[in-house]
């Protein structure tokens, strides 16, 4: 879009709009609503549902507003008779081929197709209606459920998976009326190289894609008197679950949520930020050891591959396993905060609570659908049990709360439970892209120099924001004697979110041209706050609002550096020993599976 303005007319009124904008953009700017379905602000233009058609004077056919650029003196009509007839017909055609059963549908009242049917007052199926399923619901994946009978072929999932994530699970197959959106050879999702990020779910206008719903299993556990049900909550869901109850994006309801979770019947409510802090201790130490070995040759750690890359985003990890199997040594061996927590709940916390680990059901409230897959990885049994039993998404938790009738927004606030119930602001910002990097720097810099990071209010602004790839560097000077090998080193960092952006950094590594020491990668655009399990809709505005809320919470915290979390230090003293120590190694670290383009690896792990 250029800065040049051109004159156009919409519904008889004059407007000046930037040259190169689409009719849709121009109409939105001028305050005229044009319905859309295949269009999504995050995605490339498709122009295929045709619901957005408008009339342009002098043109033979109606034009798709989302796909047509404005031209000087264009006279646009957004709701003429011709337009309304076309839109009604298009909707009726969609409904004719749609297995509509709204009251038993997960997207009831949050469905874009349903909303349009309401907008156009559809009260009859002009062209018929699909009342019988044609396809089986694909529930094979731990994370993503596909219900093809609800698919309206808007291609949003294709453009998400291919365009944003560069994974490419879906494509169109066949032509004519046989055309569908499918996986390769219609393989079940579990047998594809899907990374479980759930980004396609967030952008699907209907219930054709949804998370694997595990709320019933959690309700069952809560009802079972022999079980102690422990839940940990991650920062991103806390910044967004309010949206499920009508709040605008960007309002954290952390402490009300604590109260609601207890009311639902969870026995303990813990804070994932705690293990985020623990991750920083482990990962920060790991980074320093890798640097030490690389710079001094001292054999202080087995794997000294640089740059080191974060490993807390399970979608990213699986992406790396599939697309960059030779680069897996770059991944930190640290488990994600969710899984560190899981391993501690069934060991340390169990001991403290005096409950047998086998009687603990460990639930994680996460922004993420990949967390469901992660907790089912066969290696995630280091406590001797399945470390995390269920990963629930923000949306599923919204559903659980709705079902109870609990008015979460009116509840009093309450704190997390102990013994590991307190996290720092550094842990909090794990929820936003760049957050892990920022948290790690706050700790590592101070560890090495004895001084806080040289940024105002500890806010490391260069790693924040929503650009796809961001970088920063810090010169290390006047370091403490034990880190003398780092004196004068300019440490270089990069951050990427969305696996399409990650690919850029990984290609660089592959070519041996990566200038960085440490890289943070999150599979989802915006980081966890844009996770595949977060409230729908998503777009840049929503993600920015959530990020703002998360950074505000960080500022409000009493401690904002992971190494100042006293409970973490106690845990080391009491139980773990030291970062990268023997027990840490067993409980908090993991290994990866080079998968390549194979969906199922030979060892049977999926």
């Amino acid at each position, binding site marked *: 879009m250029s800065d040049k303005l051109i004159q156009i007319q919409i519904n008889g009124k004059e407007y000046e709009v930037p040259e190169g904008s689409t009719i849709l953009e121009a109409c939105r700017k001028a305050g005229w609503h044009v319905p859309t379905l295949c269009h999504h602000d995050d995605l490339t*233009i498709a*122009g*295929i*549902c*045709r*619901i957005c*058609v408008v009339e342009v004077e002098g043109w033979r*056919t*109606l034009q*798709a507003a989302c*796909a*047509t*650029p404005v031209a000087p003196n264009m006279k646009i009509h957004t709701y003429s008779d*011709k337009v309304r*007839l*076309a839109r009604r*017909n*298009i909707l009726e*055609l*969609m409904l*004719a*081929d749609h297995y509509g059963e709204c009251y038993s549908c997960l997207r009831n009242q949050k469905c874009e197709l349903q909303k349009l049917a309401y907008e156009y007052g559809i009260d009859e199926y*002009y*062209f*018929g209606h699909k009342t019988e399923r044609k396809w089986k619901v694909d529930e094979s994946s731990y994370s993503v459920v596909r219900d093809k009978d609800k698919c*309206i*072929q808007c291609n949003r999932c294709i453009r998400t998976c291919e365009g944003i994530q560069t994974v490419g699970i879906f*494509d*169109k197959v*066949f*032509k*004519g*009326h*046989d*055309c569908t959106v499918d996986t390769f050879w219609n393989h079940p999702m579990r047998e594809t190289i899907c990374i479980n990020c759930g980004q396609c779910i967030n952008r699907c206008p209907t219930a054709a894609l949804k998370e694997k719903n595990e709320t019933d299993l959690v309700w069952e556990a809560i009802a079972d008197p022999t079980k102690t049900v422990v839940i940990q909550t991650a920062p991103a869901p806390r910044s967004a679950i309010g949206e499920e109850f009508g709040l605008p994006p960007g309002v954290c309801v952390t402490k009300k949520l604590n109260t609601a979770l207890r009311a639902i019947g969870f026995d303990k409510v813990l804070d994932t930020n705690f293990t985020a802090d623990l991750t920083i201790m482990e990962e920060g130490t790991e980074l320093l050891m890798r640097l030490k070995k690389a710079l001094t040759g001292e054999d202080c750690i087995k794997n000294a591959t640089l740059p080191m890359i974060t490993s807390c985003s399970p979608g990213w990890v699986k992406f790396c396993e599939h697309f960059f199997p030779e680069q897996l040594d770059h991944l930190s061996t640290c488990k994600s905060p969710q899984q560190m927590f899981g391993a501690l709940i069934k060991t340390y916390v169990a001991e403290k609570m005096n409950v047998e680990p086998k009687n603990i059901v460990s639930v994680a409230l996460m922004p993420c659908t990949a967390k469901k897959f992660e907790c089912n990885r066969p290696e995630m049994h280091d406590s001797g049990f399945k470390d995390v039993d269920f990963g629930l998404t923000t949306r599923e938790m919204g559903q659980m709360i709705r079902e109870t009738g609990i008015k979460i927004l009116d509840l009093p606030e309450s704190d997390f439970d102990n013994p590991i119930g307190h996290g720092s602001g550094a842990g909090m910002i794990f929820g936003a892209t760049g957050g892990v990097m920022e948290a790690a720097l706050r700790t590592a810099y101070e560890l090495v120099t004895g001084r806080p990071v040289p940024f105002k209010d500890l806010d490391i602004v260069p790693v924040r924001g929503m650009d796809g790839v961001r970088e920063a560097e810090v010169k290390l000077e006047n370091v403490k004697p034990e880190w003398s090998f780092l004196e004068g080193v300019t440490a270089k960092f990069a951050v990427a979110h969305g696996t399409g952006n990650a690919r850029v950094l990984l290609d660089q590594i592959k070519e041996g041209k990566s200038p960085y020491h440490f890289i943070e990668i999150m599979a989802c655009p915006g980081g966890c706050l844009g996770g595949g399990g977060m409230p729908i809709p998503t777009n840049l505005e929503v993600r920015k609002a959530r990020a703002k809320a998360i950074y505000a919470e960080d500022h409000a915290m009493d401690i904002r550096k992971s190494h100042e979390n006293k409970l973490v230090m106690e845990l080391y003293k009491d139980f773990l020993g030291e970062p990268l120590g023997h027990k840490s190694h067993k409980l908090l670290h993991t290994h990866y599976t080079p998968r390549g383009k194979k969906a199922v690896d030979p060892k049977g792990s999926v």
Partner: protein
Amino acid sequence: MSTPSILTNLTKGEAYKKAMAMGADAVIKELQASELRGRGGAGFPTGLKWKFTREAAGDKKFVVCNADEGELGTFKDRKLLLEHAHKMFEGMAIAAYVLGAKDAYLYLRWEYHFMKADIEKAMAEMHALCPEVHFHLNFGGGAYVCGEESALIESIEGKRGEPRNKPPYPVTSGLFECPTIINNVETFCCIPHILLEGAAGFASVGTPKSKGPKLFSISGDVKKPGVYEFPMGISLRRVLAAVEAEDTQFVLVGGSGGRIACAEKCLDRNLSFEDLPPGGSIIVLGKKRNLISALRSVMDFFVEESCGQCVPCREGCYRMLHFVEKMEKGEKVSRKELDRFLELGTTMQTSSKCGLGQSASNVFVSMLDYFEKEMVKIQN
């Protein structure tokens, strides 16, 4: 001045030489003077298309020849490919010269695989005469929609043959997003004739807005089916007489997406861009033909051949086919229902993404226009 024809013999390479001598701008001027309009269906003025593409910004430009000939009842390009392929390649080479393009692609329909050896020979011959131009041969996969220029371009690029959003048009963003001239086989074959024989001669036949000779593929209930060359603007009556049509009920002009002309009312209409669009396909149906089953075959074709991208076409064709099947079975149809499907026909025309969907309801709408009484019993 003799009647212009594009089926007469020309010396290979002469037109290309002449084009180089004239210079690119003069070539375009000559094409504009000939008033040649695209022979692939839409009838866009060829000189203007070349001018736009020449003027479009971009270092790299391409030439593409559309030989997908998938329209129901068309086989006129087949004749040109078999007997005059060198003229087509020469036309492409001249287009490449005008653009300063190095590469020219021939997109040949899958079913014409049998010509491969001859085409490659003609291609090599022409390359020898105009070594600056590299010719490439691409085969379609058999989808009708790949004849639509932007779907064809996607197909050459190795993607699913789905029409693109327009604008941008190929003249500014075509093959590999570079400015591209894409023309029909017959259009390219006209070029050497115009350059060697003069624009005035070419434009000496036709109607005010449709000039020159035109090939027609004529089939159906006629004694002498085949490819005919007539001047633009010829009346339907004369065409039917030439092919010895028998007991004509109606004529489908322009293939599956064309319109029907009923014998009772339309014999004096003429084939031109002003009247009955001279796409190339003329199918004559005699009085013994069942109207509804003819319509059903057309709808069957579209249900199969829609690329499936957009809703009005993918779903619209399908629902329309079901409605036609209902008519075929003689089931009860109410006025309201029929009107809704006629409305749907309009929506498909106004709102589909490409020319396929925009024309898919034409036959339905125009047949019911002429023959409603014969085709449906309205029971309210």
